[in-house]
């Protein structure tokens, strides 16, 4: 079976996100005010073959834990659908 995993990786909420902070400050230059916070992460799509939903979940989770995110700095969550 073919699955599509859509993974979102975000810096841990308690960590400083210099990039998000700088983007937030600059939105004023295009007259967007009222911005309270910006945090920037990554969106990753993986298409994969797996035996079952559980198997796919396991594979994606391992990929997230071992490579795609750095658990010291980032958290992840993902959705899985049949592709």
């Amino acid at each position, binding site marked *: 079976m073919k699955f599509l995993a859509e993974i979102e990786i975000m810096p841990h909420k308690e960590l*400083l996100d210099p990039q998000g902070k700088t983007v937030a400050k600059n939105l004023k230059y295009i007259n967007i005010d009222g911005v309270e916070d910006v945090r920037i992460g990554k969106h990753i799509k993986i298409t994969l073959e797996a035996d079952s939903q559980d198997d796919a979940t396991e594979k994606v989770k391992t990929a997230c834990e071992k490579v795609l995110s750095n658990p010291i700095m980032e958290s992840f969550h993902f959705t899985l659908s049949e592709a």
Partner: protein
Amino acid sequence: MQVNDVLPDLVTAKNLGLTEDEFEKIKQILGRHPNFTELSIYAVMWSEHCSYKNSIKYLKTLPRDGKKLLVAAGEENAGLIDIGDRLACAFKIESHNHPSALEPFQGAATGVGGIHRDIFTMGARPIASLNSLRFGNIETPHMQRLIKGVVSGIGHYGNCFGVPTVGGEIFFNDCYNQNILVNAMSVGIVKHGETVSATAAKPGNLVLIVGSATGKDGIHGATFASADLTEDSAEDLPAVQVGDPFQEKLLLEASLEAIAANAVDGMQDMGAAGITCSTSEMSAKAGLGMKIDLSKVPTRQKNMHAWEILLSESQERMLVVCEPGKEKILFDIYDKWDLECEIIGEVTEGPMLEFYEGNTLVAEVPAESLVLGGGAPVYDREYTSPEYLEKIKAFKTSSIPTPDDIVQTAKKVMSSPNLVSKRWIYEQYDSMVRTNTVTTNAPSDAAVSYVKGTSKAIAMTTDCNPAYVFADPFKGTMIAVSEAARNIVCSGGEPVGVTNCLNFGNPYNPEVYWQFVHAIKGMGEACRRFETPVTGGNVSFYNQSQIGNQTIPVYPTPTIGMVGILEDASNHTTLDFKNTKDIIYLLGQTQNDLGSSEYIRSIYNVEYSNCPYFNIDDEIKLHDVIKKLIKQKIVSSVHDVSDGGMLATLLESAFVNDKGFKIDTEDNIRIDVALFGESQSRAIISMSETNEARIQELLLNNNIPFTRLGVVTDGEITVNNIDFGQITDWKKTFETKIENILEHKS
């Protein structure tokens, strides 16, 4: 005084890292029982990192005075040395070992950020940085991840901040497998009279916090000791600190602008122990106190406790003290640079540091009692000569057989990660920004940056061969200082000052402490002879590996950062062979000694051997003669003999312009000893035929031993009539070895 329901007991004090004696001493100082916030303040200020309690006794024996020194060692954030033309040079090296082992990218990045902050806090503009790295086995995936992370972290911060990384060194050894060392050095320039002191200056002055908001960074120890630790608060704790070089660049420009506007009375960056350390040190320095309202401190996270704000080590923050009335100038400047700035308190007559939350007094301690040189404890630990020294004494050079195939052996030695080019690493560092770096296009033993608007240049280097120090801490550290001085002299400079980064194991281990004490003695002895005062630096203890139930310290690694001056930048001397048929000399004498050489480590796996032959009088004589040769502008290249021995030196001189060499090694010395021995106080020079007579005369007049080794060729290498092949083949391994390992190319 806000008093918690339950006052902290000895168990809490111990959890915070304090001893029973220290806990008693705190009660004595205060004349009462401290609350948790106060206890946390003492715990961080009396920690090894802030108080130097286990090292200061010996650090004070180092030479700390010199005619060019503008501030005494330890007085300010970094050393300050007069370089003439009404300019001064500020420089310092610092470790970030444990954070880098946890998260290599951010650990190394924030290390670079911290050391630059120390320099521009004094009003100096950083013009160059260097780094000294120690890694374990490069072949393991774990170490490869650490190396890549550290290198890109250093690059990320330095490149963005806009200060060139001009030099450094890397040494691989299994003793660093679990505990890598990341030491970063910054060098800055400041005009006389534009320096700023880390002082509160006068009562009534305003205290401002500038830069990033304060979060719960770096407060693990205290958090887990605090009584009210809940699952929530543990989850709130950032495991690593994230560096923001962009913010620091703004902080740099704004700080220098504020100083130029005469609006700053005192300034201190926030590193370890954040607000606590900066307020207490600035107050104690002036013999004053401060009244601080912590509720005015901008915070990144909600509901922070007073002690969390006090201990936070969030990056890119400064404490600034100004006269009332000048705050408007500061607000305008910081606003121009989009930096947050808040008045958080004022300087008082003292002696107390008073911390409030709004109207509630949450902690009150005498500033003086917290700081090094004041009330902070000073210890002398016991030490004993390490057992392994017996194994070192047992080594004999004669036990090493002369190899049958010298060419193949040489190829193997020269492909050691310790000897090959670190190009893969340094190409990730911007070495040219600020357009001062002379050595990117003209390499020499030390990095050289010219000082715009003058005829001068500054030479910089970091050095330490930990294998030598392991074998003999006293002599090995003398060699580290000597090699640094030699690198500066070979580049055309005059050594003027030293900063040190002392990386050792656990000071409570008497064998480790023995290494520490003897290393300091050796450093002091060598620095006195070279007239290079030690202006400051840092101490990093507890660098060790846990193997089974054994704790193994890293090799003692007292990294020497040295700065030198080229009064005339045109005296800059490069290390490369320039013309075919130029004549090659070895200055100094090769001893029959293979101790601690890369050769016996890489070919024979010898772990215990003597520190290489070294005599400081020979070393000083060598420096004097090299200075004369350079001043007369009669040498074409100068390159010192160090790690890897003479063959490594010759190859490095040959690689730059794809030259080769045809040489005969010294009489009566085994070929492997001649090529790979690391006995000290030697250098390779090259010269044109026309200058040879003058050089010979100068060497003879100065009574320096020398050997005419041979000549520079078009690329072929011949040693004692043995064909060593073409330089281009050697260069291929030299240039690509590290890349091949780290990028898994074969």
